[in-house]
Structures are given as C-alpha cells and as structure tokens.
C-alpha cells in the first residue's frame, strides 16, 4: 500500500519524503485546488524544486487541481493542468468532468486520479469516470462503511485510495455547499471551507465566541479548549438542546483498519493536511511509514503501537480520533 502525504509547501514536501512518503500531493497558489490558504501551496518554481527532490529519491508527486472551474475561471484551471503537465508530475488529481475531459484529451499519457471532490461512492460511478476519462485511481469519499468499501473494492475498475488520517469531512465531499451558504465561498468554487477571512472571535460575558459569516458557531466557557470554527463542528441548538448537532471536533484515524484495507487490495492510504505544519506532516508520515512497513512484513500479526496512537491523537483536532463512517456505529 502506498503512503500518500500532503505537501502544503516545500519544507513539508521534503519532510514527508524524508519520513517515507511514497507519494506527495500539492496544489498551486490559487483557487484551482481544495486547500486555498494564504501563504500555502506552490509557485511553479517551488513545485519544480519539490518534484526534483522527490524524484531524486524515487518518490512520486501528484498535483491536485480538484475544484470546479466556472466559465470565467476556465482558462486559469486549464493553465494549471498545462503547468502541472509541463512540470512532469506523476498524476493529476481532478474532480470536474470538464477538466477531466480536457486533461484526458490533451495529456492522455499523464495519469488521472479522481479526487475525493468527484464524489464517486459506487462502482457504477467509478465506471463512469473510468469509461469517459480513463482514470487510473479514485480517492473515496469519507462516507462509506468498511462493508461498503469492501463491495466497492471487489468491483472497482480502478485503483482505490482511501483517507487514513487527518481532518474528517463528514459530508460527501464535492457535494457540500454549507460553507458558501454562510460565506459565499465553498470547497467547489474557491477551494476553501469555513474560510478564515469570514471568522470572527469575540470575548463576551457568555464566553469566547467564534463566528463564521456572522453566525455563532460555538461558545466556550473559561478553560474550555476552543477549536477552529469549521461550521459542521460547532455547537448548535436543535429542538431545545445545544450540542454538536452535526459532528464533534475530531480527526479520522484508521490505523486499526490497516490489515483489512490491505486485504481488500486498497492501493494507497492518504494523509489529509496540506494546511498543517512541516513538523506535523513529518510526524504523521513517520508513524504511518512504520505502520505500513510492519504491515507489509506480517499483515496477519499487525497491531498498531500504543505510542503511535497516542502521538496521532495528540496531533488531532479536539485531541480525539474516530474511525468515522468506516465504522457503522458512527452513523
């Protein structure tokens, strides 16, 4: 199984490669990818340096161009595809069918991966992308249970990559417009979710308050650990009760599922977090490298080290992790 790690900048890319990532993924400094953060991502020049660094060590580099271009942005998105091809990336990670069509026509020999933003959750959907655009791999949305992943793996016409660790999207990716409803900017159109430019923190008599687009997302009592106001992880009132009505602040961690994912023939595990620091990426990549190496040697005897789990939990949102939808109970 391949370990695919996030590269939000050149130092993170190098650390991921040093710690044993088989592949890294990056995006350009604009809305063409789903992690458009200020100060993050790659210029052409930095991308060239990063690709050379990874290739010199026998690792692969994928370029994420996984947002949805609108007519006024079409030229910028196709330019991103052209630039990535010219840089010599090993694969493009795409979601929009128009852009997939463009890439498949212009660069038939450059492998195409279907982004999680493409929202393919069945083998019939995968077949659509495979038949029309000859995708080589698909990243699965984080909404499927293990049983469903198993069914899919059995019938998939393409390689599958699954999310292994990091922030947990609990909505089917690529089909969540909650962020733009509150801010006007969404993952699909701007490559952002709950963007920082629309966040406001305020100390009030009721406690520390976080707002997104003016809407109160959460309110913290003194001493309570405050988290970033991702809108689906706030505390809201439903039918007279205030609670995490959609999801708690928590991260996905599938270390326990590795033997099963391995047995299903999953091709790659993906670490989320291009917005995270190089130190974070290095730690997570290192732990997952050790885990995959041990898995490779004796899959039937694999057990995650308690120290790995403890370190991963410490790095997680809310310091807790979940198996998410992979486990039926979560639903």
């Amino acid at each position, binding site marked *: 199984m391949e370990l695919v790690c996030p590269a939000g900048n050149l130092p993170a890319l190098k650390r991921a490669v040093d710690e044993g990532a088989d592949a890294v993924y990056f995006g350009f400094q604009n809305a063409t990818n789903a992690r458009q953060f200020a100060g993050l991502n790659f210029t052409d020049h930095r991308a060239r340096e990063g690709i050379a660094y990874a290739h010199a060590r026998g690792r692969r580099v994928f370029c994420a161009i996984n947002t949805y271009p609108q007519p006024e942005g079409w030229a910028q998105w196709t330019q991103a595809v052209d630039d990535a091809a010219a840089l010599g990336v090993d694969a493009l990670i795409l979601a929009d069918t128009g852009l997939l069509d463009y890439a498949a026509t212009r660069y038939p020999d450059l492998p195409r991966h279907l982004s999680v933003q493409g929202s393919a959750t069945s083998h019939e959907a995968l077949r659509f992308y495979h038949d029309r655009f000859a995708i080589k791999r698909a990243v699965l949305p984080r909404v499927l249970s293990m049983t469903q992943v198993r069914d899919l793996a059995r019938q998939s016409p393409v390689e599958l990559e699954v999310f292994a660790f990091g922030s947990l999207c609990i909505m*089917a990716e690529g089909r969540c417009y909650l962020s733009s409803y509150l801010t006007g900017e969404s993952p699909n159109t701007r490559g952002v979710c709950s963007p920082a430019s629309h966040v406001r923190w305020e100390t009030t008599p009721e406690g520390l308050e976080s707002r997104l687009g003016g809407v109160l997302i959460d*309110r913290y009592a003194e001493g309570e650990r405050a988290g970033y106001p991702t809108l689906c992880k706030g505390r809201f009132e439903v039918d007279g009760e205030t609670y995490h009505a959609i999801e708690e602040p928590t991260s996905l961690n599938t270390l326990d599922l590795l033997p099963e994912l391995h047995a299903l023939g999953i091709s790659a595990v993906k670490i989320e977090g291009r917005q995270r620091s190089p130190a974070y990426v290095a730690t997570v990549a290192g732990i997952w490298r050790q885990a995959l190496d041990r898995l490779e040697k004796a899959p039937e005897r694999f057990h995650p080290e308690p120290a790995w789990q403890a370190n991963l939990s410490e790095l997680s949102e809310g310091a807790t992790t979940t198996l998410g939808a992979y486990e039926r109970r979560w639903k």
Partner: protein
Amino acid sequence: MLELTLGPVAFYWTRDRYADFYAQAGEWPIETVYLGETVCSRRRDMKLDDWRDIARSLTERGKRVVLSSQTLIESEADLRGLRKVCDNGDFMVEANDHSAVRLLADAGVPFVAGPAINLYNAAALGVMAKAGMQRWVMPVEMARDALANLLTARDAAGLDAPCEVFAYGHLPLAWSARCFTARRHGLPKDRCQFVCQQYPEGLPLCAQDAPDEVFTLNGIQTLSGACQDLRHEVPEMQRMGVAAARLSPRAEGMSEVVAAFDRARRGELAERDPLALTEVGCDGYWHGQAGMKRTALQATPT
C-alpha cells in the same frame, strides 16, 4: 415562457400526505413534476410502483413527470434501487449521482442532470450532453453572473442543453453517511425508527444566540435554514434564457408559491410589500453572496 417545475419532495412524508399533495399539484400551473425519494434509502413507505401510480395520474392531467434518483449512493442495495428507477421504461429520470449518469448513458436513455451533479462550466455540460443529458439543474451555489457566462459559453459551444434554476425552497446543501435526525433522537442510523417522518419540513438547527434557522436537518441531508425565493428574479431568468424554474415542495403553502411564480412569469407579480420584508426568503447565491443573505433587506435603510 419560463417553465415551472415542482422538484422532488426532500422530506419524509406519509403516504397520505404525498397523495394529497400531488392531487393538488395536478391542478397547479406547473408543467413538470419530479417524483421520488432523493435523500434516504431507508424511507420505504413509497415503493417505485407507488411513485409510478402518482406519475400516471399527473400525466393524465397534462404534467410531464421525471423520476428523481437517490443522491448519495452507498451500498449494493442502493444500486439495485437505482437500477429499478433507471429501467422504469416510461418516465425520464433525473440523475442525482454519477452512478445514475452511467446507468442511463449506458442504456442510451436521455436524462436530466440534478443539482448535485456539479455542472459549473461548458466543458462539463458537453461531457453530460454526450452522455445523453437533456436538461441540467444549476448547482445551487452558482451566481447569476456566472450562470449568464455559462449560458453564453453553452450557446457558443452549440450545446442544446436547457437550464433549470432552483428558484424556491430550502436549498439542498449537503449529504452525509450520518443521519442527523436520528442523532438528535439518540438513535443509530440503521435503527432510526424513521423519526424524520415526524418533521414534514425538517428539523430546525439554530445558532445558540439567535432564533433564526441556520440549517434544516433532514435525515442524512442538510438543507438551508431559510427558504430561497427568487420570484422577483423571474424576469431576469427569462431574459438570460433560463428554461425552467424549480420550486421545491414545502409542507404548507405551496399552492400560493406556485401562483406567485406563475404571475411572475406572466409579468404580473406585484412589487415587494415593504411591510412584509421579514417574510422574504434568502437570495444571496443568485447575487454572488453568501447563500443565506436576503438582499432585499440590505437595500432597505434601517
């Protein structure tokens, strides 16, 4: 003239409620009705044959009927249900997922691409047209100006692909593996006791400090808290070359909503009553802003 369509019911109603609703809808000035369960496979009160019965009676009253497919397809059972809808043989299908697009394209059956298919540019429209798409519903978050550009690009590409705009109702904003209504009741999703049937217009989710609904929980689906209302934009839609306006069913008052849109497309809609502004729906997306914004209120001096 702009066509009016009735979108699929997002909520889980009782059989009687669906029957009453569509009996009335048969009398409304709408041309097309979308039928079917688009949210959750566990909502099984209505079988495909029940929808077909309603479809036939609406057809007899001169309506065009389209069967809408489930949006989030997760299991083999979901796919079996989807195949039945796609193979129905009589009615056109609204594909709300690429699984449906694949099945319909393979069978050579023309289809409508639903709002969650994510068609934001002319190249994507071209891909779908080649697959057999006859009509598409604009992504709900798209702005008027972007849509105008897209319609121009579509025409320049010589594509025959009429556009339908989600013009009225709670906006469908997200789908999850988790059921939020069951979660509110402390029930696991696979033993949910069908609690969403208790909420014919969903379960309101509010911020801690304000009574306004932020979102509406509807099983695994999250809808907008406010109802989008683009009735005053109908003349603009007609000028732009939008083919149809979709009205998404609510539990109450749909007949008045349909009547207002019918007046709007005839150019007979009265100006906004400045005293009734608290009742206006949201229209931010259309104006390139956050979807929840009510631009009519912004224009009013406070």
